[in-house]
């Protein structure tokens, strides 16, 4: 190694040109703000694990494979010239590109000799999918490894081959203790290492032996999936069909909710019963109804409202939305969907506790969703118009692009299916509308869809079987009116309404007169109004309102009609607010006592009457407060605690105690406040050194606890560890950790 080569990352950074440093900051923007004071500060920021993880997450599989070569080299530093020999099947330009990408991001440093910074080493848990060395795993390997492997049975060999693939860690099958699964037999032979109760790891040496000529695994070249090609015009037409369908359905759904809002569950979301009701009314399946609810919510057309904020109601935006033309309405839906942080496909699936997740529930939020959605669509958009790839192939491409984020790709097929329902894509091919959405947002989407969607119609065809057919999407005003006077029977490109006795009655109830209805039908229908429809309206109108219902407080009756007329015309009784309801009956909005008083004062001789018609000689009642009903149950005794709850409470108390004691001990270093970097540094150190940590933790329900945890792993913002006091292994979200401290050796918490 020549003397003028930089010896550290900071020194190497100093040798980089301004442009190269600029590229570094552009590629890793998280280290750029606030501006680092000097190269040393920059280097230390580059070493922050979160930043390293982020940078690595964005690399594709081919680049990571090159990094693996450097990480696995026995020496510190690999000569760039040696790389082609290590990966003979990878083309040179791919290698050069990979090295360029890695050095630009300072994930490797050095010019001829490439070095990997320590944080990068730590961040890559299983370079090239290889486990740790047998020595690190504390597994004594057989002296003659090839011979030991040769005498294995097919099953065992199969297990080893699998672990020698991408992931050296595997779950032990849950077969009970006595059953000897191949993995357990391998454990006994010392060919696998147990890393905790459930998982085993394959020592690196064995994997390398199995891999033979390809120690770094097969070359990770970009997958070249079969391209689906379809006529763009056909794609657009089918997308338009889906778009129309979606817009129509959302309109119907929200009109239904307008009439009868869905209740808000205490846990958020819409209840199963409401969802069923909507599905039935819309003639769709329940998952479909859930999707529509989610879509309406994502587009801002549906939200929680009502006087008690406990109902799902259409928003004000819905009123504007329905007035817009179809392309704009569609663009709003598609835009809302693209940006939503929710995964509608999760609705109805069971969560870890086995409970089905309700539509619109907060459990559906995944903050990575918009990024995944966009990256999936962007990958499709790279294909020219009229071509694309199937869902599985797309997932393969995305997995190659960001292998470290492969676990996030699970929702991709569902996302694509949703896109297809909306008309953003058709059979793996982006529609023009979908492209517009991706490149120019909602306006672009609307513009691309314009011309494909029909113009709204302003008339219906009335038929003798009392159906009204709107031969296309209706203008908003007519659609509103029709939903009052008729029931929707079938929807889609057209809408079939049916006028029935019930619907006419509904219209009359909401203030229409028979004449209004006749006029409306005559105006709205392009065909002559069938006689049967006019008859129906008249028939119902004749029956309507023959019974009248109103509220009064008291009445005055007499067989002497003359007397009643006299009372009614008497100026002195004006205070009683009497009016004639029918011959022989006057009514008043005032109470019986008051009316009696007024009449008596005016010189009449009225008598009170009971509800049965008997004359009351005494005033109706003396004033009384409404008392409590006797026999009501008193306050109920609290439910006794179960044994399990008692035990859990005791464990919690003791764990808190112990943690407090541990913290008070002088040997414990406490990091006050919440500094993510500091917390992470401490935690990763704890993981590395296997030192227990003291945690102040606030769980998802907001209750705080203090615990001592033996950390196992730290990844993706989650700390996994074993809480000895509570006897459970669990996952802690790093952002919920309020404070953390190392518990030094020898300062074990007091025994229970």
């Amino acid at each position, binding site marked *: 190694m020549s003397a003028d080569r930089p010896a550290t990352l900071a020194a190497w950074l100093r040798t980089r040109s301004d442009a190269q440093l600029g590229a570094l900051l552009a590629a890793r923007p998280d280290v750029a703000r606030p501006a680092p004071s000097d190269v040393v500060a920059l280097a230390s920021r580059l070493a922050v694990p979160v930043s390293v993880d982020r940078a690595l997450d964005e690399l594709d599989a081919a680049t990571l494979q090159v990094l693996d070569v450097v990480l696995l080299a026995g020496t510190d530093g690999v000569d760039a010239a040696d790389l082609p020999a290590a990966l003979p099947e990878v083309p040179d330009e791919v290698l050069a590109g990979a090295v360029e990408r890695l050095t630009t991001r300072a994930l490797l440093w050095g010019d001829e000799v490439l070095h990997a910074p320590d944080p990068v080493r730590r961040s890559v848990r299983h370079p090239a999918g290889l486990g740790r060395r047998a020595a690190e795993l504390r597994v004594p390997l057989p002296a003659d490894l090839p011979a030991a492997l040769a005498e294995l049975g097919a099953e065992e060999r199969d297990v080893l081959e699998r672990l020698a693939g991408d992931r050296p860690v595997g779950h032990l099958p849950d077969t009970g203790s006595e059953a000897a699964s191949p993995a357990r037999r391998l454990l006994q032979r010392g060919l696998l290492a147990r890393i905790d109760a459930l998982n085993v790891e394959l020592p690196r040496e064995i994997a390398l032996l199995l891999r033979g000529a390809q120690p770094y695994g097969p070359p990770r070249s970009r997958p070249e999936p079969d391209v689906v090609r379809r006529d763009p015009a056909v794609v657009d037409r089918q997308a338009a069909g889906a778009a129309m369908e979606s817009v129509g359905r959302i309109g119907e759904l929200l009109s239904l909710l307008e009439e009868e809002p869905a209740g808000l569950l205490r846990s958020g979301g819409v209840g199963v019963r409401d969802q069923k009701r909507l599905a039935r009314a819309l003639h769709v399946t329940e998952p479909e109804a859930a999707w529509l609810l989610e879509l309406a919510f994502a587009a801002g057309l549906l939200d929680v409202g009502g006087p008690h904020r406990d109902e799902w109601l259409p928003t004000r935006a819905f009123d504007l939305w329905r007035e817009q033309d179809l392309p704009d309405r569609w663009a709003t839906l598609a835009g809302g969907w693209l940006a939503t942080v929710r995964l509608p496909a999760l609705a109805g699936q069971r969560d870890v506790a086995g409970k089905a997740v309700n539509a619109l529930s907060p459990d559906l939020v995944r903050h990575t969703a918009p990024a995944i959605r966009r990256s999936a669509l962007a990958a499709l958009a790279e294909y020219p118009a009229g071509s694309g790839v199937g869902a599985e192939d797309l997932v393969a491409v995305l997995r190659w692009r960001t292998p470290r984020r492969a676990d996030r790709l699970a929702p991709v097929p569902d996302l694509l299916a949703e896109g297809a329902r909306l008309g953003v894509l058709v059979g793996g091919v982006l529609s023009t509308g979908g492209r517009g959405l991706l490149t120019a947002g909602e306006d672009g989407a609307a513009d691309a869809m314009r011309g494909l969607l029909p113009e709204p119609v302003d008339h219906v065809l009335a038929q003798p079987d009392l159906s009204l057919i709107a031969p296309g999407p209706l203008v908003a005003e007519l659609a509103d009116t029709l939903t009052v006077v008729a029931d929707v029977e079938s929807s889609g490109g057209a809408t079939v309404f049916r006028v029935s006795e019930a619907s006419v009655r509904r219209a009359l109830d909401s203030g229409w007169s028979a004449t209004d209805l006749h006029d409306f039908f005559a105006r709205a229908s392009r065909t002559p109004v069938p006689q*049967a429809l006019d008859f129906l309206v008249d028939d119902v109108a004749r029956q309507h309102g023959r019974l009248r219902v109103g509220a009064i407080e008291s009445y005055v009756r007499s067989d002497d009609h003359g007397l009643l007329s006299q009372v009614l015309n008497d100026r002195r009784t004006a205070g009683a607010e009497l009016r004639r309801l029918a011959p022989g009956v006057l009514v008043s909005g005032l109470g019986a006592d008051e009316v009696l008083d007024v009449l008596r004062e005016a010189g009449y001789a009225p008598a009170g009457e009971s509800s049965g018609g008997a004359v009351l000689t005494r005033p109706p009642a003396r004033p009384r407060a409404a008392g409590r009903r006797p026999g009501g149950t008193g306050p109920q005794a609290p439910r006794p605690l179960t044994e399990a709850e008692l035990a859990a409470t005791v464990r919690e108390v003791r764990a808190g105690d112990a943690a407090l004691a541990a913290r008070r001990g002088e040997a414990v270093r406490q990091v006050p406040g919440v500094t993510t970097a500091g917390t992470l540094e401490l935690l990763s150190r704890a993981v590395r050194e296997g030192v227990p940590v003291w945690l102040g933790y606030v769980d998802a329900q907001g209750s705080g606890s203090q615990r001592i945890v033996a950390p196992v792993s730290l990844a993706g913002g989650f700390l996994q560890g074993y809480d000895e006091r509570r006897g459970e292994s669990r996952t802690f979200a790093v952002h919920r950790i309020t404070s953390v401290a190392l518990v030094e050796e020898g300062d074990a918490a007091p025994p229970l």
Partner: protein
Amino acid sequence: MSDGPLIVQSDKTLLLEVDHPLARDCRAAIAPFAELERSPEHVHTYRVTPLALWNARAAGHDAEQVVDALVRYSRYPVPHALLVDVADTMDRFGRLTLANDPVHGLVLTTSDRAVLEEVIRSKRVAPMVGARIDADTVVVHPSERGRLKQALLKVGWPAEDLAGYVDGQAHPIALDQSSWHLRDYQQEAVEGFWAGGSGVVVLPCGAGKTLVGAAAMAEAKATTLILVTNTVAGRQWKRELIARTSLTEEEIGEYSGERKEIRPVTIATYQVITTRRKGEYRHLDLFDAQDWGLIVYDEVHLLPAPIFRLTADLQSRRRLGLTATLVREDGREDDVFSLIGPKRYDAPWRDIEAQGYIAPAECIEVRVALDDEERMTYAVAEPEERYRIAATAQSKLPVIRRVLERHPDEPSLVIGAYLDQLEELGTALDAPVIQGSTTNKERERLFDAFRTGEIKTLVVSKVANFSIDLPEAAVAVQVSGTFGSRQEEAQRLGRVLRPKADGRQAHFYTVVSRDTLDSEYAAHRQRFLAEQGYAYTIVDAADLAGPGEVNGPDWVDEPAD
């Protein structure tokens, strides 16, 4: 955007605008895979059901044709998901086939192993299949052929039946077309049926279904069993067969409650076959009495459940179903499909009417206001009595008389459901009454008298709903019915739809008590008729004009000048 006549709805209904220039082509394109549901004046509704799609597959259409027809004629873009669903559904048909194996006899074979695995594992199907021959083939016991097809349809994997038919015992039958000719559509229906092997022909009442049956027999030239709804219908068949074919009286047997003859052509009633004594069907032997080459089911939509069960055993014989409608009130359309066969031919009423083969009909609802006493009786009646009280109201009588007076020279039927009312009407109108207890002999005498014009008016009960042929009935007055049944309506309308000698218009009256259950049921019927495309008018009894008056039955609008 194209400007097609078709609108495809999300629920897989198709709306066809009939006044569109392409409407005829479009109808022809979609008819194979969509059932006509409603055909009112302007927009017809078709429905695409799995059964209809499988019918299309059975008739040799493929998914591409279906998708093409939908896309080509659709006015608006068709959602991709719907097309995919159509293709998927059609794809399910024919994965399984029933065939004859030279070694193993009847076998179920598949082109898709997973499907075979799925179905033979299903509880419904498992007991009906025998040994596995190879990965794609499994033995089926011949007696389970029908039930297996039924079961496969229920699990959503309908089998294509290619196992063929036995020829049956040959018997010479020929059509005697010296004085008449098979109409085009009848010819097409027979060809469609024969090419498909077994199946159902859907033709409106009065369109000559009997002749389709006769022509099918002439094609089969084999002994034939004809199953009909009742004895009168059976005699009717016999008369037609003697008149239109080479068959003689001696060759045709009647197997009914009265007579038990088995001849080369045997006509049996559903009732006698389904009669049970001590829990056993007594007349099953009939099916084995001859080596039948063809079995004809008249009025398939009324086929009783036991006959379905018996039919399951007759899968190796050719089966022809005849009906005016595939709609069954019991919803067992799929049994008709799997046991008798897919729909082989259908023609909409209006088309045949337009060709002049059935009489155009005018449907009129006459509303009668009940008098106060009747209204009171109705208001306080028990719910189950209400319809009867409304339907048999005395106030209807003068109106019925008035309706009949409008058509003094026309042969008229008064149809009702309540015997008391019919007796009363018979007395009041001085017309004979035909009901369940009327002997067959008496019935035939009255029908003959009616045919010759000796009797102008007949009062009939429900018994006349089916298969009696009264060629000259031009007016039907319906006074009470079975709770607005669609089927009954179709049958009653059929009574007046037979073509009249002089091409006169038929009149179909319904007398209804206003503001009662009766008018509610009438609304059902009205909807049904309107959906069938009939002009339907409502008049108030008071406004019912007599002959010679303004708007009377013979009233012709004068030109304005």
